[in-house]
């Protein structure tokens, strides 16, 4: 059995979720290839070849692939699948966009956001905002799977797989890319960060969110997250949203400030190693999952935390 992993990247660099997806793929088979679909993405393909355990890297390039258009990626992957028994994609917004399209073209189910490989046809996945874990066994000839990267360890470096070009397909004739507005940040990426500091509705404004959350994140070398309420209100950009329908994170340390801990928020962070909650309401549900809870107004607690960190040499 051979398995294809579709790389997560931004045409310039390979994302760590790819390494984690390779680990899931290696639990299915030792014959794992990676597809890099992009444009000007040769360096990404070379980086993919260095992942330990990878057999070869396929590189498909076109403008539409560089823009990540679902139709274009599907057109590349579907013909390749005659040589593979499974295709695994990290469950990022990109992967979630094209992977089900590939599944339907192959007339198979998609097994979404797996967190465990039981055997080559049996997988565990969260349902109902992570309040239940479903073990499913697939009867399809080919498996199309998205992988929750936080549930798998990253495959190491040390591979030396060759890079081969493959057909770029016929693009996305019915979709035109208009533009992309990306938030630039020098901070670590939310999805793979070791420490995440998140702010909620309590911040009250974008200015306050930045005044309170940014310096603490900087001090801790943390990525920034937010609750849906904070994003909806415009305090933080959309891709900061942690939760059932946003990003799923599992850092070493997650600090929730002024977040109540709704089911949908917990779904995105309850697998963090250590959870800290700062909330003025002692009954807030976030305290039920917090390892360390501080019942306090963030307006006093955060400055005190900054001082205590400084005193501890941070």
């Amino acid at each position, binding site marked *: 059995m051979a398995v294809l992993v579709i790389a997560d990247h931004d045409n310039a660099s390979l994302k760590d979720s790819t390494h984690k997806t390779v680990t899931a793929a290696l639990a299915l088979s030792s014959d794992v290839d990676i597809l890099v679909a992009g444009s000007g993405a040769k360096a990404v393909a070379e980086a993919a070849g260095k992942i330990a355990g990878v057999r070869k890297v396929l590189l498909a390039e076109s403008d539409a692939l560089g823009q990540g258009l679902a139709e274009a990626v599907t057109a590349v992957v579907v013909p390749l699948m005659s040589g593979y028994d499974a295709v695994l994609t990290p469950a990022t917004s990109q992967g979630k966009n094209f*992977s089900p399209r590939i599944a339907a073209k192959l007339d198979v189910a998609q097994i979404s956001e797996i967190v465990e490989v039981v055997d080559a046809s049996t997988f565990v996945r969260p349902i109902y905002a992570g309040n239940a874990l479903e073990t499913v066994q697939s009867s399809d000839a080919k498996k199309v799977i998205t992988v929750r990267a936080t549930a798998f360890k990253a495959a190491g470096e040390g591979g030396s797989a060759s890079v081969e070009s493959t057909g770029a397909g016929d693009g996305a004739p019915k979709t035109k890319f*208009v533009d992309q507005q990306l*938030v630039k940040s020098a901070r670590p990426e939310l999805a793979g960060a070791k420490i995440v500091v998140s702010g909620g509705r309590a911040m009250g404004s974008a200015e306050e969110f930045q005044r309170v959350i940014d310096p603490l994140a900087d001090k801790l070398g943390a990525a920034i997250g937010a609750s849906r309420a904070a994003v909806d209100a415009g305090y933080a950009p959309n891709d900061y949203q942690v939760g059932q329908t946003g990003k799923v994170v599992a850092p070493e*340390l997650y600090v929730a400030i002024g977040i109540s801990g709704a089911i949908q928020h917990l779904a995105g962070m309850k697998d963090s190693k250590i959870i800290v909650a700062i909330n003025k309401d002692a009954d807030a549900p976030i305290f039920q999952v917090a390892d360390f809870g501080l019942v306090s107004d963030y307006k006093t607690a955060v400055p005190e935390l900054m001082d*205590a960190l400084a005193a*501890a040499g941070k």
Partner: protein
Amino acid sequence: MKVLVPVKRVIDYNVKARVKADQTGVDLANVKMSMNPFCEIAVEEAVRQKEKGVATEVVAVSIGPAQAQETLRTALAMGADRAILIQTDQDPEPLAVAKLLAAIIGEESPDVVIMGKQAIDGDNNATGQMLAALLDWPQATFANSVELSAGNAKVGREVDGGIQTIDVTLPAIITADLRLNEPRYASLPNILKAKKKPLDMKEAASLGVDTAPRLKVVKVTEPPKRGGGIKVENAADLVTNLKTAGVL
């Protein structure tokens, strides 16, 4: 322009799902059920397109048990013109739902389908993309803004890192993300009016579509519980604990 909006009846988003003791699934007996929140956003968008004079007809479709009529009445009360229930007591997988919807689309010929990006029960985030694939239509998923015009749709999409804007040729599938709009509450007069709007019933089996499950549910279990935490006195106490835990 005719808009089709698929809607799903699911556990209410405020209810915490509980796993059945026999591990066969989640206990839905006597649990509050509602329209999936992302479907509400999709209905709202379709109705707004009609209010703007862009859409001429909004058809809501649900696949599910007889009780899904209530979900369709909610869509009608929000402003959909008519509704279709494809009745089944199975819980069809996303691929089967997409195939059933494709069959209805064959009969209805909408110009655009607006639907939720994800149902909050299965959390698959797959049906819209699958439907687009089956019809060979373009897809604009995770929409946070939609501009419909004759022949095309300009859609802002929530992607990792920000917003991507694409322009798709109609007919197309659009899936709604959280920030596309804030759905209205249906007013009492509109709820009463909705009772008189047409609601057609069809048996899923009559559509001649293969809906056999591809996945066998081996078991459904509770996720591991987190160990109990402690309350700390102050920020200095917190930092001490974090150092001991080895995360600083």
